[in-house]
């Protein structure tokens, strides 16, 4: 697909794809980080529950 593009279209298409790729990678990292925070939070919650049961 890229081989058939004019230089103007090629530049813009590639730049857009790299931009979207970067945004996806960053979004995934943020999602991963928030999941870790939530898991930690849940872990604390579980701990509290355990304390209650005890």
């Amino acid at each position, binding site marked *: *697909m*890229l*081989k058939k*593009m*004019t*230089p*103007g*279209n*090629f*530049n*813009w*298409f*590639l*730049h*857009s*794809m*790299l*931009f*979207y*790729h*970067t*945004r*996806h*990678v*960053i979004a995934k*990292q943020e999602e991963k980080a928030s999941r870790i925070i939530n898991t930690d939070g849940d872990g604390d919650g579980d701990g509290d529950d355990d304390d209650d049961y005890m």
Partner: protein
Amino acid sequence: MLCYLPLPLWIVLGFSFLPTTAALPEFSPFPDLTFLSFSKFIQTNFSANISLSTVLLMLFTMTENPNLLSLHARQQYSRGKGENISVVNSWIKSLSWAVLAKVDGSGSKLLHESDRYEGISEKLIVSTVAIKLDKLAQHLGLIIYNKKGHLKSALKPISYKAIEAVHIICPESYQCVTSGCGFRSLVQITRQRDIPLVTLVKNNTIHENVPVLTGRCSNCTTLYSADHERSPEINEENKFTNLYLNSAKYIKVGQSIWVDRLFSNAVVNAMYSFHASASAYMQFWNNSFGKTQQHAARQLSRRQIWQAFVQESIRTIAASADTELVVGDNLAIDEITKEAFLVLGENGVIRAADQHACSECTHDYIATTSDNTPTAHSAAVVGVDEDVEQPPQQATDSGSSSSSGSTDDGMDVDKAPVKMVVVDGTCFGPKHCAYENCSDDLINYRGGVFCAIHEQTHGAKCHVRNCDNEKIRGTQACQQHQQQWKKYVTQHKRQSASGFRRITQRPAENLPWISTNERTEQPHDEPIEEVEYKNYFSAPRFYCVETICAPCGVVIAWAKFPKAESPTNILAFLEKVFHTEESKPDYICIDKACQILRTALRNGSWERAWEKTTRFIVDAYHYINHREDDELCKKWCNPAPADGSAPNLVVEAKDKQGKSCFRRAFNTQASFDTYFI
């Protein structure tokens, strides 16, 4: 024989050849009753305080579930022995339970005042609402039995055509936003008979004959459309600029086709995730959505898909840069992409990656001492050479290391954390001007070989190098070089191309008609000889696209290299992207880092730009193969020295058995290559 067929049979045959839409489901019309009758029914059966939204919810719940209503109705009649009649059966009770769960569990918003009393059980509420829903279904005519109790047929899906909202495409701004206009109101400028009626694709549904309205400020004469604003240029008569609105709800993608942002976003995401071309997406959309809707203009074209991609990507990238793209009036789509790259492309630097830092691409600084300067003998690599001693551990406190200010092996250690980037290239690219040392865009991409300047100076001349004769009409060579031109034409025929493709796809296949051409392979870490073409019969392609990535995969910048992935080109690219000392990474991993280091030392850029801040390292594969015979590579480019000379490239970790081990601190395989494969 056919001519003897009777006329009615001819008519039947004629109709059978008409295009049909067999896959389209049949629909029943929307319930046809007066509002007064419906209103009276609601007042009689439901709470006096019932809200409009709850009434509409119930109405659409009934029209959305014809299958359930058929099942319910069938159980209300007995057709055989042992078949029990159930008026309030579990089908309608399930629907009642779902409605109550969505509206109000207690039923206080639904039940009529006469049906409510203190202590009413949940079961009774469900049954009461179920009875009301059954009555509602009968009132709406959503029944499968007639008054005599005879079965008609199962209910068909209900068509919403009759209650579709009227769509109008109009400007988003309700007043003029040009400074100095004092927020004037906008005037609708088009006469009623001239208002364009277009096709709108909204939520993947085609709406036809949608009016497009344009507003104008009577003071500054700016035209406000739904997706752009057109304003006159200051001090320029009859010249206008178009500002693409990032917040546009609908985008114009064709002369009379508009799409919503859901559509344009889907195009971009398909191109990103599936590597789909505009043509492939066109086929997908037309097959999935276009053909299933009965409309005259149900097919989208490749150009409209490409337009949707360009318009959406422009708005997304402009929004991330906190700006809006302004271009000249009446530009062709190819001109718009050029302008967009000039304004928003930032020379290949990806704005989304600006100031990016994460745990994968940065680590806390570990101080080095003079004892662990790399030596010619420290060639072992962590994670590769298993029999080496583990690297000595350093203090990991970045604060203490910074305050100590020890600048071992010339590096400025007064900054933390440690960053690395990975540089890699992929061999592909568009065509460029064939003239020597010119990589400008072709003026004609379909068969042209020169840029605008060289087309003017050399377009009419013979395309053989250093020949100034006029070319013969219909060919690209003069009389003297016709032989070369004919040879070129023969070699570049379609049949020859398929032959070459076979050779490249099956290199091991040794067939008698395939010429055996012994070639020496070019190792990636050796200087590349520049190929000089003898003629300009075809336009060459850019040699490669080089990317700078963070180890986590975030792309920092990209560039096209016209002729070679040479160390000089890479150094120039790196200096352009990391132009300040603060922006420079601590480590740059490239598969030909030793070559780059050698070139940088030779041309002075090492001392000028890199020595204080950065080290060039190679990837592990390169290092294992190259450390034996290249002293500079062995000593300075080790990606993870096992002797502790570069503690920032090694981290302590646990293996599968839970034992302490050392691993490379950064992923050196990060690149965007996989996208192009």
